């Protein structure tokens, strides 16, 4: 059982680290960019004021990609430690 416990701990450590990284990126799109929307508006992005674009569309696109990427990586972690379901 000791080996399994060790494996579990490694699996959880990797899972936790992945989650932390994902949440940091999430916070940038959820809070940091919208907080500075007014300042970012002086820049243009495909014809939009940049700050407006991120609060209206850009952050949303980032969230969709973020979940997809996290799931891809989490599946890989599960497979690596043989923790996937049958």
């Amino acid at each position, binding site marked *: 059982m000791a080996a399994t416990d060790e494996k*579990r701990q490694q*699996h*959880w450590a990797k*899972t936790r680290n992945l*989650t932390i990284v*994902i*949440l940091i990126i*999430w916070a940038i*799109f*959820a*809070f940091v960019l*919208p*907080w*500075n*929307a*007014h*300042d970012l*508006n002086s820049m*243009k*992005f*495909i*014809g*939009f*004021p940049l*700050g*407006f*674009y991120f*609060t*209206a*569309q850009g*952050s*949303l*696109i980032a*969230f*969709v990609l*973020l*979940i*997809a990427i*996290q*799931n891809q990586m*989490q*599946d890989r972690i*599960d497979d690596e430690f*043989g*923790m*996937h*379901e*049958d």
Partner: protein
Amino acid sequence: MAFLQGRLVDNLPKVYGIYTGGFIVFIILMSILSSLGVSAATIGILFVAFTICIYAIIGWLSRTMQLDAYYVAGREVPAVYNGMATAADWMSGASFVALAGGVYFGGYVYMAFVVGWTGGYVLVNALLAPYLRKFGCYTVPDFIGTRYGGNLARLCAVIVLVVASFTYVTAQINASGTIAARALQIPFAVGIWVGLVAILMCSMLGGMRAVTWTQVAQYIVLIIAYLTPVIWMSNVQGFGIIPHFSYGGAVHRIQELQPLVHLGAAATESFKGLSTLKTPINATGGALESWKFFTLCACMMAGTASLPHILMRYFTTPSVRAARKSVAWSLFFIFLLYFTAPCLATLTKLQLLDPNLPTAIIGKPFAAVADLAWIKNWSAVGMLKVSDSNHDGILQLNEFFMRPDIVVLATPEMAGLPYVISGLVAAGGLAAAMSTADGLLLAIANALSHDLYYKMIDPNADSRLRLIVARILLVIIGVAACAIASLQLTGILGAVAWAFDFACSGLFFPLILGVWWKRANREGAIAGMVCGFVAGAGYLWWVEHGGALLFAIDHLRFGMIGMPVSLVTMVAVTLMTPEPDAETQRMVDEVRVPTGGTILAQTH
């Protein structure tokens, strides 16, 4: 019936493909009828009646007397379809009907709803959904009750769930009443009861299974209905058929026009429930504005990750991996509507303001505007008002009063689109409100029947009795919600935001820490739920009774008071009391790995 169900799961692409095709044929048929001179009112009635009948048929076909099917749809819903069902469950009347209107009137700060209601899914996926699926519970209080142990923790979770979901469901019934009233041309008070009957037809006989398959159907209707007018309008205004990447010009043009139409000039008259446009489209700068965005966004995100009717959708997937995949699909389907809402708000605003467009009304002769069909129609039901306050014969921006909720519903008429599109949008709005109301009613009734009745009052009840109790509760709660909705206490978006605040105040940290902090114990969780919820609700009461705002946190954001209180008390009380027993700690370890069976038995 089991035979048909088996076939349904295998044939989903075919079944929903035919359904979507059939719906499009129906739309074409309606436009033919419309061109043959059938009245707009009849078209509206046909749209609403046809879609309600389809949902009712699906609800009838999915009836069941099995616990597993009733509570978690037999745990056999594929990820993509669960994604669609979650999207319909999630996108309420508020998202469909009121969100674009909120952005239209509220500008930058209201886009916190758009960011919050999508970004919350990153939290759901990263912190909760896969772990709760592994747990194998029927309801959210089921997780709290088993993880922390004891009926008191379970009861606290049930109370928070009921308060949050009930607040939310009254707003949905309000929305379905508004739409049914307009489309079927009946009084609002009758409209909400029509809405309730339709909602119960989808959920009563088949529980979660019926709700799942009707929600997939409702998603298809609502997304077609939302995207069609935007694509049409954008095409007419010259932004192409996918405006999401190209309407930047409209934003700049509105910024140019804002000073010309005297944006910000106070209205000299006021009409109950109606507003004039006062807020600029873009951020104006300043820490207060950013803080308002941040607080609203944070409450909506944490609320997303604590609302039981959403979390319980991920209990219906066949595996942990499928639960994760279905969160990804959910967000994608939700995203399609949410990243269209700011676009819709912008294009609608432009067409009312820009004097170069034929649809403009601001700055036009008052008599001509007052004579427009859509102005007359919406004025007749009291949702819009034009009043020449300064008697100059010209309609000014501060003389155009509108209920924020109607922006989406009225847009096709403002843009001069054929009435078929208005009928379609009404059907879509109704689908959105009904699907969310279904999910919420079921979440409440299931928590009461499973957690309160079965787990706490009568653990010996057989499955037949449990299902009868669940259904009786469903009807009682529906009727109660209807009775409260008929009082029309607050706007659609207001009540919805409250539900998120209640949920995150009481449940966010006890749920998250239940998975992520092994040391978290029963005493801490109970303290977190009770103190967070009481602090949040108490602050709401304080604000609603004229109390001074703390840190500019208003009634839409009271989760910002509840959540920190919940976190601090939960951590403090946990550390002051003994750690959970070895059995519980082993359970948490088990939840963290996908492999192995669920924690709770298949049927429990």
